[in-house]
């Protein structure tokens, strides 16, 4: 096997084992499953003879109020018109994703700072193997947990006479590519900073920026960020994985398969570009 691939395999296996023997992932996964259960169970409690009535369930009552105040009623109705699963999936995945991404960025930053990355680089591996191993580890756990959620929601749907449509599975696939894009920003953040704390700050700063602009533009103007003409929206349109993801989701809703595939392709291109940039940054700035 090629030296680089062997290094990726070895380091990824180590990372996976490290995650499996620490409690963090199990705590985050338990929290995610709990939130998912609450949202699915709450949704069934919000249905009466008149259809979906959020006020019947205290959790959904609060959620609908918050979302309506930001995005308006029509957005909320649209969000739950396919059932609770999309929203529940997103909320359930959030703790796991936050744990995986923040622990990876922190750990990568720490390892770079103390010289572990440099030490591994003396051998038959390079910074790309190291970065890719972090990405693959997080994708492995994100995909595993997503699969668990899909099984959990499928059983819930079967027991409660809900239908999980193909749109839900497309949503899950799109989330996977969003995770790839966001984690690539995590790796770039590490390569551009000097310590673990600043890596985390840059990563979450970028994430907040993309999310706030995406959500804020819709909440304030009622327009998707792609339709606005400003410098900030230009940056988001080119560099935000959240933007490409929402384009893909909307394309799926309208049945526009080419646009959906294009958004996935662009997410992959963005991720590869970010990983390539991080490799250059690590080489130019040094691995410590």
């Amino acid at each position, binding site marked *: 096997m090629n*030296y680089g691939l062997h290094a990726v395999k070895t380091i990824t*296996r180590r990372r996976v084992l490290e995650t499996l023997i620490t409690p963090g992932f199990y705590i985050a996964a338990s929290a995610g499953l709990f939130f998912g259960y609450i949202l699915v169970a709450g949704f069934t409690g919000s249905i009466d003879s008149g259809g979906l009535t959020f006020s019947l369930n205290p959790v959904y009552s609060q959620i609908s109020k918050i979302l309506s105040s930001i995005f308006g009623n029509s957005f909320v109705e649209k969000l739950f018109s396919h059932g609770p699963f999309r929203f529940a999936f997103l909320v359930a995945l959030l703790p796991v994703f936050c744990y995986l991404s923040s622990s990876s960025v922190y750990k990568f930053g720490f390892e770079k700072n103390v010289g572990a990355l440099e030490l591994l680089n*003396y051998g038959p591996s390079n910074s790309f193997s190291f970065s890719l191993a972090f990405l693959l580890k997080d994708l492995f756990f994100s995909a595993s947990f997503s699969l668990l959620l899909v099984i959990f929601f499928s059983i819930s749907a079967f027991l409660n006479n809900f239908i999980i449509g193909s749109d839900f599975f497309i949503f899950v696939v799109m989330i996977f590519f969003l995770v790839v894009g966001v984690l690539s920003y995590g790796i770039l953040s590490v390569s551009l900073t000097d310590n673990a704390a600043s890596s985390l700050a840059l990563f979450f700063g970028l994430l907040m920026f993309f999310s706030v602009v995406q959500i804020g533009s819709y909440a304030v103007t009622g327009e998707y960020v792609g339709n606005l003409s400003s410098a900030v929206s230009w940056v988001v349109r080119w560099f935000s994985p959240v933007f490409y993801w929402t384009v893909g989701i909307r394309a799926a809703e309208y049945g526009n398969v080419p646009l959906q595939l294009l958004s996935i392709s662009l997410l992959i291109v963005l991720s590869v570009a970010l990983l390539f940039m991080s490799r250059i940054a690590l080489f130019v700035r*040094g691995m410590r």
Partner: protein
Amino acid sequence: MIKTRALTKRFGSFTAVDDLTLNVRAGEIYGFLGPNGAGKTTTILMMLGVLKPTSGEMFLFNEEFSHRRLDLKQKIGVVPERHPAGMWKWITAREYLELFADLYRVSNFEDRVRHLLEKVNLLEVENKKISNFSRGMIQKLSIVRALLHEPDILFLDEPISGLDPMGIKMVRDLILFENREGRTIFISSHMLSEMEKICHRVAIISKGKLLAEATMDTLMLKAAKDRDIYIELEHIPGGLEEQFKRMDFVLDSYRDDNTLIVKVLKKGDYRKIIAKFLIDQNLIPLKMDEKFVTLEEAFTIITQDNVEKLVKNRGGT
């Protein structure tokens, strides 16, 4: 085995390594010496592909080396100056070595680990967490890690710093053993007395420039202003020092207990003449040693600015 050609590294207007050309031969222990800030670590980082040179070339095994040559990296072992022990402190020494054995695809892991840990006296603690290790133990573990995959070249940056005298001896013996096994060893250290004991050839750099690259004897001879000949006699008759002082090649002569020290001109080997003179005087030399300067003295002389110029005027090496 290791070659650099006009290797240069600039950080802005500061030149850390300036036009450095080194040539390390296969199977030798090569000492890389220089005062703090001389550019040793920068040179080593360029040699290992971690730092990109501003200009110049690097060759390992007669092939051009860059950070992309993972096949060549597989054939070298590295002990860095600062080991990132904090990173792996929650795993045992064995688990730590397993990680690197996986990475380097070490097939005879059990035998190799046992052999190396035994050599540095760490076998008993192989299942202890690294967090319990002293600095010296971590240093020895780092050396074991670098040797695990039986590299052809071993780069050691300050390998004995932080070790007690026993540890220094163990590491020295291990380096000599591995060299006898055929490994080329490139070693950078401030402990010149140790370097003197193990190195075949040394290079001295200062302010990023190569001042000297030579065998230990040649280097000491170059640095020395004279030679000291130590002659051990059963007894030293009165006036013997004065007789020596009258010889035209002798600069000075004095006694230290039963040893007569004769300071002679640097050029020429006068031991035969001295021995013949002593025998003519019915004095049998019990022991005769010739000493130039220690490596430490040579290092000090060579790195002084005025001598630096002198050495350069005489051809650099």
